[in-house]
């Protein structure tokens, strides 16, 4: 067990810091510290252009293996990459679903042809992805997927019908990965398949959901005989659940470091305001600020544990608690931000409902403890899978 960085790591730090300083300029300067959950509606086109800029510098897929077009960076250097990206105020990544979820999933379960066809679009910052898991009747009970897919008469295309919901960035995406029921009459996690579906077709309709923030980054997505070619099935028919769950494991990998870097910038903003308005002199707020700061460090150490452990797809104890840990931490940061702002937090930037970053943080973090497995589901998973306690009764 050892912390700290080698001199080779430190010169890598110079390289990425220098690149970011040189490129996060001009047309990209307004993007600094923008985007990311809660601010995904800001600058979508400009941030897509930034993805292409990053890609041209070779900074997309830094953790991917070289045979997939990645840099194959060590864990230490990936940590440094995320640290420097945040320090420079790199904008929230539009490509994170492709880079962090689809890439590793295709590397693990895709065919060589699928990797060759789909990974370059991600790595070059040309193609953006969204995630089609949740449905109106399949939230916490994710296996209750009702979206159906069947082969057409010629056996060349899958035809998909149904509805997905809470789909982040669907309106900006070129592709959606869809969990669909391909065995008629099957129930639960049996009979599901993992399909990659192009978004640009008339049979798919995207309807933004107006959130309690007044903005929209989640959507409803309606599929009405939407089409995708048979070579866009990942794995075998019926393996959808296995692949969907493995993908959630990748969600707890290196991408957590990028997420924490956004948290870091939010906390820095809260601390800056606390110093400016005198809240930093309040003993109770000082306690909460120090608690937030050390809590964020603990999230980081948790990630270092996840990344240093065996990468065999099994979730370690630190991975099982990760979602519950960060969602609680982030919701408390949102409340702390408002308590630090005091009266100033009650007035909007502009009518009708333009929020400041910290107001948006306060409101948006109410979703963190719900999406991606609510805190209640997380506690069931921890109790049953990590602590070996009896399973909840199920009706099927």
């Amino acid at each position, binding site marked *: *067990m*050892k*912390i*700290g*960085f080698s001199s080779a*790591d430190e010169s890598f730090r110079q390289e990425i810091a220098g690149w970011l300083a040189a490129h996060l300029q001009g047309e990209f300067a307004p993007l600094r510290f923008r985007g990311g959950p809660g601010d995904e509606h800001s600058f979508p086109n400009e941030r897509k252009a930034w993805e292409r800029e990053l890609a041209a510098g070779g900074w997309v897929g830094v953790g991917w293996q070289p045979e997939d077009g990645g840099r194959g960076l060590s*864990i*230490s250097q990936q*940590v440094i990459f995320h640290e420097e990206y945040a320090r420079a105020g790199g904008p929230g990544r539009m490509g994170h679903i492709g880079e962090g979820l689809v890439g590793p999933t295709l590397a693990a379960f895709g065919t060589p042809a699928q990797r060759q066809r789909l990974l370059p679009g991600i790595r070059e910052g040309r193609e953006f992805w969204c995630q089609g898991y949740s449905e109106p009747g399949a939230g916490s009970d994710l296996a209750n997927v009702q979206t159906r897919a069947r082969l057409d008469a010629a056996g060349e295309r899958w035809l998909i019908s149904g509805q997905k919901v809470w789909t982040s960035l669907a309106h900006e995406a070129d592709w959606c990965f869809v969990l669909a029921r391909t065995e008629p009459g099957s129930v639960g996690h049996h009979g599901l398949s993992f399909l990659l579906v192009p978004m640009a077709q008339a049979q798919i309709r995207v309807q933004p959901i107006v959130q309690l923030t007044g903005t929209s980054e989640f959507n409803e997505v309606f599929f009405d005989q939407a089409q995708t070619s048979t070579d866009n099935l990942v794995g075998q028919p019926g393996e959808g659940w296995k692949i969907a769950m493995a993908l959630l494991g990748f969600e707890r990998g290196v991408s957590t470091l990028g997420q924490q870097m956004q948290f870091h910038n939010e906390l820095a903003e809260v*601390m800056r305001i606390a*110093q400016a308005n005198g809240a*930093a002199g309040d*003993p109770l707020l*000082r*306690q909460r*600020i*120090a*608690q937030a*700061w*050390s*809590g964020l*460090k*603990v999230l980081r*150490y*948790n990630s*270092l*544990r996840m*990344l*240093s*452990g065996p990468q065999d797809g099994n979730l370690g*104890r*630190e991975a*099982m*608690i990760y979602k*519950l*840990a960060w969602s609680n931490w982030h919701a408390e940061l949102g409340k702390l931000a408002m308590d630090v702002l005091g009266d100033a937090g009650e007035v909007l930037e502009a009518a009708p409902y333009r929020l400041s970053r910290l107001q948006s943080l306060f409101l948006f973090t109410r979703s963190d403890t719900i999406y991606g497995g609510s805190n*209640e589901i*997380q*506690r*069931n998973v*921890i*109790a*049953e899978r*990590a*602590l*070996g*306690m*009896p399973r*909840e009764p199920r009706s099927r």
Partner: protein
Amino acid sequence: MEFAFTDEQLMIRDSAERFLAQASDSQAVRAALRRADDYDPELCRRIGQELYWPALLVPEAFGGMGLGFVELAVLQEQCGRFLLGSPLFATSCLATPALMLADNPALQARWLGAIAAGQACATLACALQPARVQVQAVADGDGYRLHGSHAQVIDGAQADLLLIPARSPGSTGEQGISLFAVPADTPGLMRTALPTLDQTRRLACIELRQVHLGDAHLLCAAGQAWPLLRDAQRIGAIGLAAEQLGGAQQALDLTLAYISERRQFGRPIASFQAIKHRCADMMLQVECARSAVWYAACVARECLAADGDPAVRSELLAAAATAKAHASEAFFHCAAESIQLHGGVGFTWEYDPHLYFKRARASEQMLGTPAWHRERLAAQLFGEHA
């Protein structure tokens, strides 16, 4: 960067676990409670002279094993799980780091050598803030006369060597503080064992009545000891946090064992979601504390290693604060939940949860409460004089 244990570290953990599961089981812990003012001497002898745990951190030059603080933290975690009653914590996590940071080779050779050989145990009289150093050290010929008292010293009545801070008359703040190595048999040193709420660890009141000590007893230059004392206490807090982590884990494990056996309404109470969710929250706190403790142990290692990384060393305050605050709160929470989830029997003397609950409270208070550490951290974050 590698944030996982080596095979050697895992071996230390496993062998400590095997030894303590037997030598410090519930019966042994309860027998130790009944000893009024010492620890089980046979257990201390085995730890010092058969297992060589006190030698673990001591550099090879002084007859020790020269392992790092991470290895010691691994050991401490197991000691915490089994509520080991022993002077090991004060000796290895407080006195040994202080001696290693000292600048007095003769003193180091004598006492680190004796500690490594299992022939001496030692402690540090803690003072978290400079103002708490109240023993007076008056220059007197070729040495000093120490006068004053120290209300609570961990294992103060058991230690063969006491490291005691004292200040020169009229000095204030961080200035004028010296750290003295005071052998237990020094004339004028009075030690009174105190009855303690947590009976698994000993405290003593120390009184110094015109104790005369020569220059050779100074750990570092006279009047310049605050940074050493401060860092030794931060490192000690990390060692204590490792012990608290073990206690928290064990409180959770005891609870899981009990609730899977205990049946109400025709089913094990572990099957109720109200209970599952509370256990999940306990594990959340334990694992967060674990990450904080491991990281802090790596920082402590760099602070004690001759070739320690200066960038990592600079994280000592923050790492100690993060680990101590998280481990204190995780342990107290898990111990309190352990009583609650045991129900009525959790309130009895017969069942073990109260032993963990009392240790959790004592350890939370010792070497800085969570609120105290967070205030230090806030001062550093806001660039105030810490």
